[in-house]
């Protein structure tokens, strides 16, 4: 596995390519069955791994010691477990009608201000339901300042967005649609646009029993779509947890032990979601785009400004302040919500600022004890993982994804002209 320094160099190069390629990114439109298995992703860790060396006797002893450590560390946290049923809020029961409507709306750019952006623009089924960029593309005329997260399994989260700003899928959709760096949509304009589309009017009637589409129901429909259609709960890890011992390879099993022991991942990535849903500062390096792209700087400073940080912080901050935007507590600076790990094989680049291109980079970062900024999480420490251990850990991480959720964008219903006679010319002589 590459050294972290190599990784960083590679990353800088890759990030530059990302910038140059921005806006021109061509990806094939998914077609055929809705669920396709991405063989590349499944095979990746195996194929990249060099010939395995036989464990030396002293290493075997160390492994035995690690196993004990595993047991004691893992015991302190909720165990890895299968995903439960998707939680559904009482005020928005799941129905098929809502789901089909929500799917259409998810792909409809008429929810954005200038028709240039739909939910799928930054949560693209072909790109792990993220947008594949280190930092999201954002609304036209802007460049977003955070990584676009996958929305697969987002239905399980009680805190949405990287700094946990939204408490529900409905609230998250609202922020994304109206956010000036995201959809820049106007709720009343959206309602009137939808009212101009007879097929939507009928679908809202069917799903919610209302005569005219409302913005509130737009959010409910999109959330229903996410709850029903964007759940990945059958990864090899899930199969293993369901009792299929053969679902995880030997390497992945060793990786699992490391995950719960020597590597300490379990401290934050635990329970059915593989996240504690808490906030931590890893001391991550800032994405170099913030020193290279004026529009990223605009977005970062705009974020400081609209979130109401004190003037001095606005003037002097050099980085994304994370949870601090919400709490204004200095101890919360640069803390971000632990992301869940399922579907991770499809969601590179990683971290809130997309600073790591690959999972290998992520492992190297943690192995080195995280970043070197002040205020880092006390949970971070050098891990001293061997190369083989890193590969095992990677193998385990890649067992958390399973089949890719592919989806062909639906055909969207069109505007229809208003079918009512207009008052004729009022000129009496005509």
């Amino acid at each position, binding site marked *: 596995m590459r050294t972290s320094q190599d990784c960083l160099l590679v990353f800088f190069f890759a990030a530059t390519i990302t910038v140059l390629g921005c806006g021109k990114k061509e990806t094939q439109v998914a077609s055929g069955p809705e669920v396709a298995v991405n063989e590349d992703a499944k095979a990746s860790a195996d194929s990249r791994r060099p010939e395995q060396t036989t464990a030396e006797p002293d290493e075997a002893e160390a492994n035995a010691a690690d196993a004990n450590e595993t047991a004691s560390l893992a015991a302190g946290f909720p165990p890895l477990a299968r995903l439960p049923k998707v939680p559904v809020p009482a005020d928005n029961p799941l129905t098929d009608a809502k789901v089909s409507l929500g799917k259409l709306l998810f792909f409809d750019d008429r929810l954005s*201000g200038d028709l240039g952006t739909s939910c799928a623009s930054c949560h693209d089924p072909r790109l792990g339901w993220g947008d594949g960029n280190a930092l999201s593309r954002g609304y036209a005329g802007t460049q977003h300042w955070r990584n676009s997260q996958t929305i697969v399994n987002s239905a399980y989260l009680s805190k949405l967005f990287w700094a946990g700003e939204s408490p529900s899928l409905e609230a998250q959709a609202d922020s994304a649609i109206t956010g*000036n760096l995201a959809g820049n949509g106007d709720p009343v*304009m959206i309602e*009137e646009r939808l*009212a101009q589309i007879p097929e939507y009017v009928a679908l809202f009637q069917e799903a919610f029993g209302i005569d005219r589409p409302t913005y509130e129901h737009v959010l409910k429909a999109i959330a229903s779509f996410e709850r029903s259609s964007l759940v990945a709960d059958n990864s090899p890890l899930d199969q293993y947890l369901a009792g299929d011992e053969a679902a995880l390879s030997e390497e992945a099993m060793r990786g699992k032990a490391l995950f719960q022991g020597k590597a300490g991942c379990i401290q934050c990535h635990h329970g059915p979601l593989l996240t504690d849903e808490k906030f931590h500062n890893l001391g991550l390096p800032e994405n170099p785009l913030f020193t290279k792209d004026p529009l990223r700087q605009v977005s970062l400073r705009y974020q400081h400004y609209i979130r109401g940080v004190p003037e001095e912080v606005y003037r002097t901050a050099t980085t994304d302040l994370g949870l601090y935007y919400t709490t204004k507590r200095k101890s919360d600076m640069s803390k971000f919500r632990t992301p869940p790990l399922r579907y991770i094989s499809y969601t590179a680049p990683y971290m809130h600022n997309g600073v790591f291109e690959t999972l290998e980079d992520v492992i190297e970062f943690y192995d080195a004890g995280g970043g070197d900024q002040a205020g880092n999480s006390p949970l971070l420490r050098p891990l001293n993982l061997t190369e083989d251990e890193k590969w095992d850990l990677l193998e385990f991480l890649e067992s958390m994804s399973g089949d890719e959720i592919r989806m062909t964008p639906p055909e969207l219903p069109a505007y229809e002209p208003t079918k009512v006679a207009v008052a004729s*010319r009022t000129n009496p002589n005509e």
Partner: protein
Amino acid sequence: MSFASAAIVVLWFGSLPLATLAQELKPLPPNDEKPSSELADLGKLLFFDPRLSGDATISCATCHDPGKAFTDGMPLSTGYPGSRYFRNTPTLLGAAGQDFFYWDARLSGDDLPSLVRDHIAEAHFMQADGRLVIERLRQVPEYEKMFREVAGGEPSYGKILNAIAAFVASLGSREAPLDRYLRGDQTAMPEAAVRGLELFRSKADCTGCHYGERLSDGKLHNTGVPENPQIFSDPLRHITFRRFMRTIGVGQCATLRKDIGHRCVTKDAQDDGKFRTPSLREVSRTAPYMHNGAFSTLSEVVAFYNDGGGSDSDDLQPLELSSEEQADLVEFLKQLTGEPLVLKPPELPAYQLRTLGEF
């Protein structure tokens, strides 16, 4: 004034205040070039800068094109991408100092910066968050410098609005043949136009509403201009129309098939279909005409008034002008426009990288 024409005037102005009968046309003061200022120069740059719109694609000049007398030359204005507006873009020449802004008079003429703000912020115009606009301009060192020098500090929303307002206020009406004629130059207008002026003041009684230096009473009238069916048949316009009526508080907008004008502001039935009397200056270059661009030529406008306006107009009566008289009137209307204001779009300063954390 002949007895006959005086009788007609009295007849159809019976319901208007007597004061309006005494209104006369007035020339612009000589050399009425509005003084330029450094603030207006800054405002000029901003006027052309698409970074003031949400998706950075349109500027003030997109709809108020200097090459088209600060209009867009369309019956109905375009608006923000994804929407289409439902009223005609008025010229900005001489716009400052009106009693009201917008065709429906929803803003006070005393507050030009608010008019600018409304354009930047509204979903149907530029759909931009002012806080984002500020950050964009602060990312342009040349703007930073100019704002500090001219407006006394870094770019702020208020300073942006004031600068653009100063530029718009500098766009005065241009001296027209009528001004020279009214100041005594008998040769300033062709004979047909002089006859047209007489009709304008007498038989056609345009001066009932179009008088003074601005050729407008600054008031609101319902002349019964026919609806522009595009507002209802074009989905994007009808969407924008309904959204506007909803957000300004008009109920039942889904079934509305008429632009109710000033009534959308006051919600008062008396104001139904009332629109602000536009200035007639620059009128040769600001076709199409009326709040909804219903007429594409001045001849159509004159014919409309000759017919007594629309059926539900406030006070208009047929004028019984001969076709020659109508032609003379059009000839006169052509004397209200000055030399075009030639304004080249400026080169805009670019975004630059900053060192984050250093102010």
